[in-house]
């Protein structure tokens, strides 16, 4: 982490990410909240790139910015009569209070701890990550693919309309 460029990038990314996350907190229209969330994801992808994790940064853009945001927009569009309201429940005050206390504890611990001498950039490339996933982490990797398949089949089953289920039952 050297040079002024990294510092400028860090503070700009921090401003964009935390500002957009604050937008998600305060926006009352759920569509605006999704758009702010996309901006937050892009900011976090920038952080990943800054932390020299290029593959994870690209995966973040493809999966979060590309897929999950579109999935959320679809879910909002498929629930038209539920309204676009993104208001708060009665738990607003306790919830915000808990979050503020948690942030205070985290920040105290982070700045109170002595983190030792920062190591040099380990320089993990996509091929290093791929080799690790295919050797040390091969069992969790295969389990993750099974999990993804199961989750997607389950999602498709959940959103089938009652009419389609009746048609299948007849056969």
């Amino acid at each position, binding site marked *: 982490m050297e040079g002024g460029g990294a510092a400028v990038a860090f503070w700009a990314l921090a401003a964009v990410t935390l500002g957009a996350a604050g937008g998600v907190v305060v926006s009352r229209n759920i569509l605006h909240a999704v758009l702010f969330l996309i901006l937050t994801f892009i900011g976090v992808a920038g952080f990943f790139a800054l932390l020299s994790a290029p593959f*994870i940064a690209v995966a973040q853009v493809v999966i979060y910015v590309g897929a999950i945001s579109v999935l959320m927009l679809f879910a*909002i569009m498929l629930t038209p009569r539920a309204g676009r309201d*993104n208001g708060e*429940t009665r738990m607003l005050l306790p919830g915000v209070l808990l979050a503020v206390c948690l942030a205070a504890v985290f920040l105290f611990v982070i*700045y109170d701890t002595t983190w030792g001498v*920062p190591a040099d950039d380990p320089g993990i490339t996509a091929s290093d990550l791929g080799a690790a996933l295919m050797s040390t982490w091969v069992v969790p990797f295969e389990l993750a693919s099974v999990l993804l398949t199961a989750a997607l089949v389950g999602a498709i089953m959940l959103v089938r309309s009652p009419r389609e289920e009746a048609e299948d039952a007849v056969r």
Partner: protein
Amino acid sequence: MTPDIEHFLAVGALLFSMGLAISLTKRNAIGVLMGIELMLNSVNLTLLTFARFSEGGRAVTGHAFVAFVITVAAAEAAVALALAVSVYRNRTTVDVDRINLLKS
């Protein structure tokens, strides 16, 4: 001021707290899901921060862990949004205050 490990961890902690506030206070089920996604993302940021500032041999573990967290988050988002659509189909609402079938 060059960014140190503390600064990255502070951003991760603040993002996590914001995600917690969102998921605890929002009334729309999709809004709650947004908070959860934000929390998962902040955890990824923290993991990658520790990977970046640790020794070379262990750093790749952090990257692998982040890859798994992203996978699980994608699966969770797909199932949760399908549940939201399914609940909407039965109750015409995704308001977590009004989904109270078990509270007789």
